[in-house]
Every structure is written in structure tokens, then in C-alpha cells.
């Protein structure tokens, strides 16, 4: 049982006296505490029902993990420096955070008093934690709270304390835990966080309106990832920024005939420029993230260290170039124009469903035509072409899926994803192999020891084998994807209404 009460301002200053009159209490501690809540940019902890706080007092600092309703899971001493995933004792939580950085999401400061409710023999049978009034950095203040903490084996006592508090004038049950109030006070809304657009269209709304809404959301996601990309907080910021730019380019393509042609062409050029700026940094990020795994296949970690160092140098340079682009007037103009020209609905013409039907049936035909032409002997370009068309179809399903019912959409995406996985594996292995080769030439010119170059040769060979293995599966995966069931699924989607 964890229960929180809002304490009325009039009771606030005499709160301890009021409680002491009502319950056998001992004041255990009274201090000013700064609390920093940590989470990833995409709120992975919050979404998993967790909150992670650093409690900083004058002489001590604690790391506390709790459920969202305030029930504590763990508490450990920690230094006063920034918290990293390595500080967490629980492996599952570290895995949940993954490659993302733990960021201080909200900071609040205020008095905290811990009162022990005493039972027989002066044993603590429950605790009342008085928190606040709390000052929230960059936010509005949050009033005083009284939180009842139950202790294991003494649940009945805690329930009794809750009932007592409930009966004291000036104490009322809190509608939400303190954490959520602090988040709201700071203007943060984790539940509405999206890393991709959240689109729900009704069939008859004008296509212009649907596109404007989608482009508005895409712009917000790009903006939300710029700062983290500039500061290289973690590699996912750039990844999400890049994927969102790719999605936006696809939307612009689909908007042929809906958005004025001159505007569409202008932003297609600008977005291609932006996408190009992100390519090299992202490729190198991916390389370095998977480097240990990659070199483990050729068992030559030591020899390949100069290769890693070269990649790290290239990565730094690429990010510096990307940062220049993201700080440029051209990028600022792109974001401004995006808001003023792309994210506004033009005159209403066709309803969105007509546009979606056209695009979807055309995209399906394109995929089918290229897929049917694929044999084990088809050139790599044909595989790349199929991959691009599949991506186009996938984006269409994402954007317009709400028009076709959740079940059909999710089944179509799942089926397509299986095909895309193998096409992606083929493409990635090829891109990495070519990059390994280029790097090897550069290292050779710089007089790198032969052992390193030989190991790189083995790496290139390993990537070639991976690419060959993926290539050998393409035709088979296509036939599995193109079975009658899926053909009917797509046909049903555009004719079922």
C-alpha cells in the first residue's frame, strides 16, 4: 500500500503537530532534498512503469528506483555526479535502457521530513514522508504531500494510518503521485511522447488536411531530436532524426497532386540535403556500435584496434560536419518553411481515402512487379530496388493504416517486415563491406601494420559471406511474402470499405 495525500496550505506549517496529535510518531529526519528524475529521451523507464530518482542531500546522495505509484523497488548510495546506466544494480533495467542515455528529465527541490509511525515496543510499522512545498526547475511549484509508506509485514498498520490521515481536515487523497505532478508542473508529458507520427484519419477528411497534420508531427519529432544529436547524448537521437527525415521525404512523395508542385519540389531538395548530411555520421555510429560484435566473428580484436581508431576519428569529423549543418541558416530556414508552407492545409480537394487507395494499390503493384522479377541470379541493383519499393509500401501502411482497420494494418506490416529484414541484411552487409574496403585502403596508405590489414581482409570476407547468405534467401522470402494470403490481404485493404 502506498498512498499519497495532498496537504492543504493552511495545515502545511503545523503538519507535524497535527499528525503527532493523531498518531504515535517519531521524526526521523528533516532535510532539504534536491531530486533529479532520470529517464531516457523516449521515456523507457516511465513506459515500463518505473521512476528513477537521485536524492541529493547535504552530505549524502541516493539512487532510488520505484514504481510509478511510489512503491520503492531499490535504494542505494551513489556519488553526486550524473547517473549512468552502469550505476543501476538491476540488469533488466540496464537492458531496458539499452543504447539510450539516462538524462536528467526534471529537477525539484524542497523540504522532506520522514516520520516513523510507531507500534508496540516502538517498532516502526509505517512511515509518513512529508514532501514539499516543492520547487520544480523551469516549472510551477507543487504543494505539500504526505506519502504513507507501508512496511513489509505491517500492511494493516499502513492502511490504518491512511484511514487516519483521510479523516484529518486539510488532508485529501492525491489524484496522482508526486512524480506525475512534478512532470506536469515542468510541462512534460511522457505519455504523449512519440518517436513516429501517431496518425488516425477518418476516410472523408481532405487529403490536404491529413498531409498537413502528418507533416506537423514529423517536424516536431525532428525538432525534438536536434539537441540530442548536436550534443551526441546518445546515438538514437541521430537515428530518430534520420528516420523521421526519411519518412518526411516519403510523405512528400506521396503528396504528389495534393501539395503544390513547386513547394513539394523545393522541400524534396532541402530534405534530401538534410538526409545526406546525416548519412555518414549514422553509418559510422552503427559501425562503432556493432564493432565488437563484428570483430568477434573474425577473432582479431587486437589487430583491428587501429581500424576502430580510424572509424572513431572519422565519426568525430562526420558529427562535427553534421553539427555545422544543423546549426546552419539553411537548416533553420528548412524548419521555418516546413512550418509555414508544408504543415498548413491547402484547399480541400480529394478525400484522404481516395489518395490512400491509389497510392497503396500502385505501391503494391510496384512491389509485386519487382519481387516477381527477382531470381537467384538477379543483380544487386534489382534487390536494392525491391527494398526501396518495400520501404515505400511500409511507410504507406504506417501513414494510412488507420483507414484500413488495425488488424489488417498490423498483419500487413508484420508480413512486410519479414521480407524487409532480409533485404536490409543484404544491403547492410554490402554497405559495410564496401566501407571496410575503403577504410583498408586508407589504413594501408597510412602504413598500418600488415596484421591489421590481413584481419580487415578477413572481415571483408566475413561480410561477403553474410551478404551472400542474405542474397540466397531473398527469392525464397519473396515467394513466402507473395503467397495468396498476402495478395488477398492487400486486395481486401483497398476494396473492403
Amino acid at each position, binding site marked *: 500500500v502506498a498512498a499519497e495525500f495532498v496537504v492543504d496550505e493552511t495545515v502545511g506549517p503545523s503538519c507535524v503537530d497535527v499528525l503527532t496529535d493523531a498518531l504515535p510518531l517519531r521524526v526521523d529526519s528533516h532535510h532539504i532534498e534536491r531530486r533529479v528524475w532520470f529517464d531516457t529521451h523516449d521515456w523507457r523507464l516511465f513506459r515500463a512503469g518505473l521512476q528513477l530518482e537521485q536524492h541529493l542531500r547535504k552530505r549524502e546522495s541516493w*539512487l532510488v528506483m520505484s514504481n510509478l505509484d511510489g512503491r520503492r523497488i*531499490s*535504494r*542505494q*548510495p551513489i556519488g553526486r555526479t550524473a547517473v549512468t546506466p552502469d550505476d543501476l*544494480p538491476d540488469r533488466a533495467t540496464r537492458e531496458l535502457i539499452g543504447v539510450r542515455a539516462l538524462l536528467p528529465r526534471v529537477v525539484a527541490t524542497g523540504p522532506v521530513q520522514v516520520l*516513523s509511525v510507531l507500534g*508496540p*515496543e*516502538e*517498532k*516502526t510499522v509505517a512511515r509518513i514522508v512529508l514532501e514539499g512545498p516543492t520547487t520544480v526547475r523551469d516549472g510551477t511549484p507543487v504543494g505539500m504531500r504526505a506519502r504513507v509508506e507501508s*512496511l*513489509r*509485514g*505491517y500492511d494493516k498498520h499502513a492502511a490504518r494510518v491512511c484511514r487516519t490521515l483521510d479523516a484529518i481536515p486539510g488532508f485529501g487523497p492525491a489524484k496522482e503521485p508526486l512524480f506525475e505532478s512534478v512532470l506536469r508542473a515542468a510541462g512534460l508529458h511522457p505519455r504523449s511522447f512519440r518517436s513516429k507520427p501517431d496518425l488516425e484519419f477518418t476516410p472523408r477528411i481532405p487529403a490536404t488536411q491529413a498531409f498537413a497534420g502528418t507533416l506537423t508531427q514529423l517536424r516536431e519529432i525532428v525538432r525534438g531530436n536536434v539537441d540530442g544529436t548536436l550534443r551526441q547524448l546518445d546515438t538514437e537521437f541521430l537515428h530518430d532524426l534520420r528516420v523521421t527525415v526519411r519518412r518526411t521525404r516519403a510523405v512528400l512523395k506521396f503528396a504528389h497532386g495534393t501539395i503544390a508542385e513547386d513547394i513539394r519540389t523545393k522541400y524534396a531538395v532541402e530534405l534530401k540535403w538534410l538526409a545526406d548530411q546525416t548519412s555518414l555520421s549514422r553509418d559510422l555510429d552503427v559501425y562503432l556500435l556493432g564493432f565488437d560484435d563484428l570483430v568477434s566473428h573474425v577473432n582479431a580484436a587486437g589487430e583491428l584496434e587501429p581500424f576502430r581508431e580510424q572509424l572513431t576519428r572519422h565519426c568525430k569529423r562526420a558529427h562535427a560536419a553534421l553539427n555545422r549543418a544543423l546549426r546552419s541558416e539553411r537548416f533553420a530556414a528548412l524548419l521555418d518553411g516546413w512550418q509555414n508552407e508544408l504543415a498548413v492545409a491547402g484547399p480541400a480537394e480529394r478525400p484522404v481515402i481516395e489518395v490512400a487507395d491509389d497510392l497503396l494499390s500502385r505501391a503494391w503493384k510496384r512491389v509485386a512487379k519487382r519481387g516477381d522479377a527477382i531470381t537467384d541470379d538477379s543483380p544487386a541493383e534489382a534487390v536494392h530496388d525491391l527494398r526501396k519499393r518495400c520501404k515505400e509500401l511500409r511507410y504507406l501502411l504506417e501513414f494510412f493504416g488507420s483507414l484500413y482497420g488495425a488488424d489488417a494494418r498490423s498483419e500487413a506490416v508484420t508480413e512486410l517486415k519479414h521480407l524487409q529484414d532480409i533485404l536490409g541484411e543484404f544491403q547492410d552487409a554490402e554497405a559495410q563491406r564496401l566501407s571496410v574496403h575503403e577504410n583498408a585502403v586508407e589504413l594501408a596508405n597510412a602504413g598500418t601494420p600488415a596484421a591489421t590489414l590481413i584481419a580487415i581482409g578477413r572481415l571483408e570476407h566475413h561480410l561477403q559471406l553474410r551478404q551472400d547468405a542474405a542474397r540466397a534467401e531473398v527469392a525464397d522470402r519473396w515467394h513466402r511474402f507473395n503467397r495468396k494470403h498476402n495478395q488477398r490481404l492487400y486486395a481486401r485493404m483497398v476494396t473492403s470499405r
Partner: protein
Amino acid sequence: MRIVASYSIKGGVGKTTAAANVAWLAAESGHRVLLWDLDPQGGATYLFRVRPKVKGGGEALVSGKRDLHDAVKASDFDNLDLLPSDFSYRNLDLLLDAEKKPTRRLGRLLDGMADEYDVVVLDCAPSVSLVSEGIVRAADLVLAPLVPAPLSVRTLDQLRSFIDAAKGPAPDLLAFLSMVDRRRRLHRDLTEQLPKEHDDVAATAIPMASVVEQMGVRRSPVVAWARTSPASVAYRSLWDEARLHAKV
């Protein structure tokens, strides 16, 4: 989960105070700690102000009728829970004997707590019995207090033999001198000699101190309320040695 047993063949040598202080220190460093008071006298249970009562008694726990989790009580300290003593533990030997593979039973029961606790500290009754065999079998480290006396080396030998004779993988042994009065020459000499001559004797010795006796009055581990006292410093140092042995 690592299991540390505070155990001695002899009574009144500082097992319970060691168990209580070590458990508190482990909890303070952020580990989730369970202290199981297996002594029917309930010294540790008294120190933590918990009622010495388990519903259904030792029989219900040993037979599995009552889940160990349900019998756990929170202490007044963060991260530190207590499995209280019960007077029926005086018959624990008989209860274990009624089970299949009796010396493995305690370990099996504790396996079920591994999700919730990082460290379990067992406060054992002084005896050589089926219970102590089970404790030795379950533990990763046996923490054994020795009083500084000419017979302490013999006691240590007996303890080693007992551990070696127990079935299953032998736990690590860390003996330490307890109730050391530095005014006495014999105590000073043994405190210096024993750790040098025996690898399994801790360099730390716990002093005879009135603050340790005060624990019974204050009903709280000395490390919690007299943090800078020589006794607390010694317990802290003992825990530093013990956690290395127990790989905590």
C-alpha cells in the same frame, strides 16, 4: 544472492551482534538484505524490535506450508528485512529430520528468496546439529566469532573440521576475534598472532565495548547509532573483509 552465516559452536561470543551489524552494513551499501534469526532465543529479533513469532512456527516454514516470503517483516532500516525467530525453532532439528535431504532443506527454502534479496545473513543458534549442517551447506561464507582465549585455536580447528565434514561444496570460513579487551595482554597477543598464523582469521577484531552491550538497550545495531565508535569502525572493517570472501 549470497548467504553469510554467523555461526559458532559456542554461545555468547557475539554471533548475534555480528549478524545484526553486518546485515545493517550490507543494507546501507544498497544491497537488499534479509536477516534470518534461526536462534530460538530470538536475540536478533529482539534487537530489531520485531515480535518473535512466525505463524505456524518452524514446522510451517520447513515443510513449505507457509511461504518464507509471508513471514518476512521489515526492519526500521531501508533495504533490511527480518525473518523473525520463533520459539518452535528449538525443534528445528526434528523438523528438518522429517524432511527428505534435511541438510539441503534450508538452502532450498532460501533459493526462493533469490529474486528479492542480494544478501541473506543467518543468525544461528550455537550447536552442532542438523540445523548447523544445513546452514553450513547453504552458506557461501561462515562468519565465526572467537573469544580470545588459549582454547580459541582448538575451537577454530573444530569449526574447520565441522565445515569440511559437511556434505556439499564447503563455504568459505572467516573467523574473527570478538569481545577483545585490549587492556589484557593475552587478548592483544592473540589479536596479533591469529590473523598472521591463520588465513581464515580476519585481520579485524571486535573490541569489548559498552556500546556493543548498549545495543540491547537501544535495540538497534551499534553501526546505526554510534557510527564513529571503535566498535562500529571494527564492524565496518569486518564487513569489508567478509564481503570480499562472500563475493557480495
